[in-house]
């Protein structure tokens, strides 16, 4: 038998809540985290909104010296990690840290700090502090969390941006099944910065009003930020210490479109394949799937391709499966999108509530599935998928199931 992997801890920082409780309440109420940008001056941009994290005060969590050294991305990651670690009761139980590892997904990472450095450097205004450059590596948040909590197991960082933190869970699962670790910290963290904002803006992929996945009026994404951290644990290890088992990680799939650097394969062929690979790996049939957390970026092409891919896998049943596009509320958090959405998927299984896709008003004939419009619904969910797709056709699909106790 393959080792079974369960989720025992969750932590989140997002535009709609900086704790699991607040985040989940906002999701099921359909709260929108989109606001005017404050991280930089957006006046010269066509679009001026983002799903920024608010009510986050670094002083509540870190010393003044730490604040100087930690990028915003690091701060989100560490705060979400602490919540996940505590909720898994790993702060209290004696565990062998040699067998606790970490894999996080990165997006733009600490580029906000690096941006600050090079802005001053290139404009020759003043001599910037080299300490801003320690965030130059995408591995910084991963290393900081490992160092803070003394994790001596395997450690790495995945870097496929929009699907990074979903991929990180697949890698973490392999590390547990290879017996390199009993517990893996996984997920991701990312912060809004002008570099990525201007990039998506230059590709005309940002909606000026709100993020409206699967709606005919959709014009693109709203960039978000935050962190979503999950604790993956080998089942026997979790049972032995009587850990709170939130759900089971059943499997994952990763594949490539091999199609285009930014556009998804239009017929959903890559989406279909990645979901099939994931279901196959999990040993789950399409009939058993009860809910899907869509990638749902609200770009015109993604939503059509994803809809087509879902139809190919689920056939007639596709219309029955409730789909959530929570990017309508938390924005597209890039390097942490997969982590935050995996947290939402686990909470969906746990609570039997499907979070809605908000701002959904005008149906698109090309997106004709059940996207759980505007209102959350109660539904017993045994198995749920979470999709993440990235530039270049880097697709990831995760499969979570209710832990059945045997």
């Amino acid at each position, binding site marked *: *038998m*393959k*080792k079974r992997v369960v989720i025992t801890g969750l932590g989140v920082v997002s535009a709609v809540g900086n704790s699991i409780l607040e985040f989940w309440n906002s999701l099921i109420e359909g709260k929108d985290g989109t606001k005017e940008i404050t991280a930089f001056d957006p006046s*010269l941009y*066509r679009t001026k909104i983002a799903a920024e994290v608010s009510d986050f005060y670094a002083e509540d969590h870190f010393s003044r010296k730490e604040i100087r050294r930690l990028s915003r991305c690091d701060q989100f990651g560490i705060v979400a990690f602490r919540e996940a670690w505590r909720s898994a009761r790993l702060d209290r139980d004696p565990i062998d840290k*040699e067998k606790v*590892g970490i894999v996080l997904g*990165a997006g733009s990472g600490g580029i906000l700090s690096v*941006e600050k450095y*090079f802005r001053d450097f*290139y*404009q020759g205004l003043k001599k910037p502090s*080299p300490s801003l*450059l*320690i965030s*130059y*590596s*995408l*591995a*910084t948040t*991963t*290393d*900081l969390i*490992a*160092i803070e909590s003394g*994790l*001596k*197991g*395997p*450690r*790495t960082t*995945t*870097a*496929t941006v929009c699907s990074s933190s979903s991929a990180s869970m697949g*890698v973490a699962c*392999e*590390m547990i099944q*290879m*017996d*390199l670790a009993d517990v893996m910290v996984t997920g991701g963290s990312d912060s809004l910065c002008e*570099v990525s904002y*201007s*990039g*998506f803006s*230059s*590709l005309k992929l940002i909606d000026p009003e709100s993020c409206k996945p699967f709606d005919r009026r959709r014009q693109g994404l709203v960039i978000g930020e935050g962190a979503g951290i999950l604790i993956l644990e080998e089942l026997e290890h979790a049972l032995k210490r009587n850990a709170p088992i939130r759900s089971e990680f059943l499997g994952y799939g*990763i*594949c*490539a*479109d*091999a*199609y285009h*650097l930014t556009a998804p394969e239009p017929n959903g062929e*890559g989406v279909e*394949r990645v979901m099939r690979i994931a279901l196959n*790996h999990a040993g789950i049939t399409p009939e058993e799937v009860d809910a899907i957390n869509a990638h749902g970026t609200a770009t015109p092409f993604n939503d059509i391709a994803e809809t087509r891919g879902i139809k190919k896998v689920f056939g007639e049943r596709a219309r029955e499966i409730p789909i959530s596009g929570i990017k309508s509320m938390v924005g597209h958090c890039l390097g942490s999108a997969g982590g935050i959405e995996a947290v939402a998927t686990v909470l969906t299984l746990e609570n039997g509530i499907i979070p809605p896709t908000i701002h959904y008003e005008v149906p698109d004939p090309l997106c004709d599935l059940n996207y759980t419009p505007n209102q959350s619904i109660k539904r017993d969910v045994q198995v749920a998928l979470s999709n993440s797709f*990235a*530039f*270049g056709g*880097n697709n990831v699909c995760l499969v979570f199931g209710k832990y059945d106790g045997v």
Partner: protein
Amino acid sequence: MEFEMRNAECGLRNMRSECPEFRIPNSKFQNSEGHRVVITGLGIVSSIGVGKEEFWKNCLQGNSGIRPIRGFDVSSYRSRLGAQLPEVDFKAFIKPANLRRMDRIGRIVVSAVRLALDDSGIDVKKEDPNRMGMSIGTGLGSSDTVDQFFRSLLKDGPTGAAPLLFQTAVPNAIASHCSIEYGIKGVNLTFSHKETSTEMAMAFAYRLLKEGRADVILAGGGDELSEPLYHVYSMLGALSPGRGKGPEGMRPFDQDRNGVVLGEGSGILVLETLEHAEKRGAKMYAEMSGVGMAGSTDGLLRYDLKGDSIAKAMSVAAKEPSTVDYICAAANSTPDLDRAETLAVKKVFGERTKEISVSSLKSMIGEFDGSGGIRACGVALTLFHGVIPPTIGIEHLDPQCDLNVTLGQPKKKKIRSALLNGCANGGSNISLWFKRC
């Protein structure tokens, strides 16, 4: 197919006893841990040679790729050296229409993939594209493209942000270029974790092949030496001569070592299940047989100071430590890492330490996050030819680094198995174990 499924479920060392059907008839292709994995192709784009022949010749002759930096002004730095690539004719490897879409690091890695595929004799068109994958490691990916993008944004505001630059600036663009260029549709993942980026990419590929979830995975990666990267390394005090007294240079294990000289390049391995390789009559360089990983927590810019984690990674990877005859060291001419790695080797091999030959190829190709791919190609060639390349630049071997370092001339030796170490500042340590075929 049925055997494959069963094996996938049972392919775990410690679960063997609980899985009676695990013993399968054709044990030549599978061992107790699953499919056997072999290296069947090498693609190298390095400062000491493009293609395995030129690279290997220069490796054995101890020719360094380190020269004064070309292409940007380093007069304001204390350092002036780098191991940069020679002029590479990328048109020889990449279709012209696709070449336009790629930035420099994209071109470097895609060319290495072309070389690796050609070397392996695999015709992608004849393979199932879903059973082929890419697993790439890069520390800083398109650092130059990111910088260009940022500078034009600073200069011209939002209108200066160039969409074409942005789409190639993401770290996964490199693996995407490869998948698009060759139509490779299976697993596609990019790792970025400082100096262990490529080692992790190979470890992940190994695991999937072992489980029978792919037939062939192109694994490895690379990095480019760009001006912003040079600036960052210099500002963080990582470059030789740093605060050191001695001259600037790459001198792993030398008592006067004082920091790294940056390099660049890409190394790609064709990793393949033994079953698939035999079926197509492939040439095999070596077998990949183990992976070990461990984290240290000495500080964000610190290596594993005591060598405990490096030792743990090596001992988990090398399941038959008594057969290890060669170690391709991570030693990068920094005071801390070279000493820690020495401690680690002694911890794992004790009395046998002196019998094990050690070299650091970084002495010739410089240090960079994605160096593991090229160094793994070096290990494959070492096992295949039974010759150990020397470590260059050493004048006075540090008494604290008293390993059996191969100096001066290459050494002929029958090598049963070898370890490749990757050690990152911040504390990620990975060791990969390879056996002679």
